C-alpha cells in the first residue's frame, strides 16, 4: 500500500512538473531553431542559433519595449512597497480616529474589479495629457488595497516589544518604521515585491489601453503586436515570448525562498 502510494505521489509530482516546465523548454528550443526547421519536431543541435533574437531585436523595438516595461515595473513596485507598507503599518499599529473606516475601505476596494473604472480613468488621464506617457503608466498604480492588507496582516504578526522600547527611547514613528519595522519585514516585502513586479511586468490590459505609439509600448503590448505580424514564424514568436518571460522566472528563482516564507507569515489565507 505505502509503496503504491509513494509511486503515485512521485508520478503526479513528475508529470505535473513536465506540464509546467515542458512548454518553456520546448519554446526555448524553438526560439533557437532556424526558420527552415520550425515545422519539424526533431532538434538538430548543430543548427541552433541566436539569430532569431538578433533578428527581432534589430528589426523591432524590442529593447525599447523591454526598457519601458522595466521602468514602469520598477517605479510601480517601489511605490507600492513604500506606500502599502506605510498604510499597512498605520492600520496595524498607530491609533488614530478613522482607522477602522480606512481598513473597511481597503477590504471593500479589494472587491472592486479594476475594469469598472477603466473608462473614467482613461478620460482623466487623457485630460491630464498622461496617455502614452510614463506618468500614465505608473502614477495611477502606486498603491494597492491587496498589498496594504498583506502588510497589515504581517505587521500584526510581529512582536511589539522592539517598537515599544524604541518609543521609550524617543524615536519618532517614522524612524521606528524605517529603522526597526522595515528591516524585520523582509519576507513580507519580498512576497509583495514578487507579486507587484511580475504583475506589472506582465500587465496587459492597462498598458494596451494607455499606450498608442509603439515607442511607448510595454513588452507584452509590443509582443502582442508582433504576434499579429509574425505569427507564422514560430521561432521568432518564441524568441519574443522568451524575452518577456525569462526575466520573471529568473527573478522568482532568486527570491523564491524568501517568497515562500513570506506567504506563510503574511497570513495570506
Amino acid at each position: 500500500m505505502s509503496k503504491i502510494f509513494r509511486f503515485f505521489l512521485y508520478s503526479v509530482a513528475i508529470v505535473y512538473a513536465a506540464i509546467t516546465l515542458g512548454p518553456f523548454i520546448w519554446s526555448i528550443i524553438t526560439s533557437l531553431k532556424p526558420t527552415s526547421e520550425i515545422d519539424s519536431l526533431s532538434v538538430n543541435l548543430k543548427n541552433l542559433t541566436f539569430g532569431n533574437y538578433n533578428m527581432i531585436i534589430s528589426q523591432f523595438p524590442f529593447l525599447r519595449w523591454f526598457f519601458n516595461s522595466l521602468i514602469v515595473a520598477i517605479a510601480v513596485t517601489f511605490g507600492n512597497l513604500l506606500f502599502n507598507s506605510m498604510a499597512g503599518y498605520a492600520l496595524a499599529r498607530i491609533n488614530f480616529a478613522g482607522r477602522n473606516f480606512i481598513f473597511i475601505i481597503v477590504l471593500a476596494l479589494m472587491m472592486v474589479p479594476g475594469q469598472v473604472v477603466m473608462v473614467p480613468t482613461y478620460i482623466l488621464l487623457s485630460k491630464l495629457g498622461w496617455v502614452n506617457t510614463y506618468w500614465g503608466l505608473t502614477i495611477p498604480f502606486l498603491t494597492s488595497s491587496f498589498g496594504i492588507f498583506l502588510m497589515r496582516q504581517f505587521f500584526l504578526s510581529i512582536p511589539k516589544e522592539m517598537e515599544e522600547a524604541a518609543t521609550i527611547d524617543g524615536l519618532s514613528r517614522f524612524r521606528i518604521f524605517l529603522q526597526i519595522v522595515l528591516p524585520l519585514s523582509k519576507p513580507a516585502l519580498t512576497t509583495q515585491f514578487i507579486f507587484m513586479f511580475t504583475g506589472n511586468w506582465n500587465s496587459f490590459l492597462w498598458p494596451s489601453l494607455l499606450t498608442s505609439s509603439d515607442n511607448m509600448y510595454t513588452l507584452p503590448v509590443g509582443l502582442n503586436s508582433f504576434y499579429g505580424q509574425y505569427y507564422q514564424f514560430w521561432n521568432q514568436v518564441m524568441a519574443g515570448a522568451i524575452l518577456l518571460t525569462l526575466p520573471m522566472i529568473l527573478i522568482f528563482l532568486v527570491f523564491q525562498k524568501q517568497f515562500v516564507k513570506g506567504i506563510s507569515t503574511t497570513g495570506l489565507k
Partner: protein
Amino acid sequence: MRAHSISRRKYISEAISGYTFVLPFVISISVFIIGPLIYAFIISFKDFSYLNPSSSHWVGFKNYIGLLNDQTFKRALLNTTIYSLFVVPTQLFIALVLALVVDSDIKGKTFFRVAYYIPTVTSTVGNTGFLCQDGFSQHPVGNVAHDRAGLNVNFALPSIMMMAIWSSVGNYMVIFLAGLQDIPTELYEAAEVDGANKFQRFIKITLPLLRHVVFFNLVVSLIGTFQIFDQAYVVSGGSGGPLDATMTVVLDIYKTGFKDFNMGYASAMAFVLFLIILLLTLLQRLLFREEMY
C-alpha cells in the same frame, strides 16, 4: 495636569503620523478609484462618447435595459460563466492535489514547488504563444490571420481555459500549502494512534481545518475568472472571435468603450460585472458561514 497634557500631545502626534502614513493611499484611491467609480456610475446612465463629449445626455436606464437584448453581451456573459464554472473547480482541485503532494515527504520538494509556481510569474501574452504552439490550437496568435485561418470555434474557449488553469494553479497551490502547514501534526498523530488511515485523516482532519483557505481560494479564483481578458484578447487578436466564441465580459467592455467609444454603455456593462462579483462573494461568505455551525 502635566501628565494629561503630555498624553494628549502624544495622542495628537500619533494621530498626525497615522494620517501621514495613510495619506498616499487615500489620495491615490480618491483620484484613481473612488472618483472614477462615481463618474462611471453617472455616465452609465448617459449616452456618452469620449469622442464627442458635448453631445452626451441622460438616458435613464436605457443602457442597462439595452444590455438585456444585447446578444454579444449575453454571449460574453455565457462564455465567462462557462469558463468560470469549469476553471474554478478544476484549478482548485489540481492546486490542492499538488499542495498535498509537495507537503508530503517526497524528495525534491523544493524543486517541485518552484516548478509548479513558475507559470504564475510569467506573462499571459508570452504563455499564450508557448501553449498555442504546443498544439492547443492551430493558428492561434495573430490578428486578422486567425479569423481567416480559423481558430476552431468549438476549441477556442477550451484552449483559453486550459491556458488559464495552467498559468494560475501555482498561486492557489502555494496558499493551500501554507494552510496545510498550519495544521498541527499532533492531530494526525492522535488520529493515527486511533487507527485512522490516510484517507480518513484527510477527510476528517485536513479538509475541515482547511475550510477557510478553500474559501479564500474560491473567492479569489472566482473573481479572477470573471475578469478574464488577456488570453481572450491575445488568442482572438482583440476580436473575441471566431463568432464571439472567445468574447468575455471584460473584452466586451473594452471593445465597447475603446473601439466603439460607447463609454456610457461600457460603464453599464462594467457595473453589471461589479454586481455579479459582489453577489458571488457575499453568497459564498454566507454559505460558508452556515456550514461552520
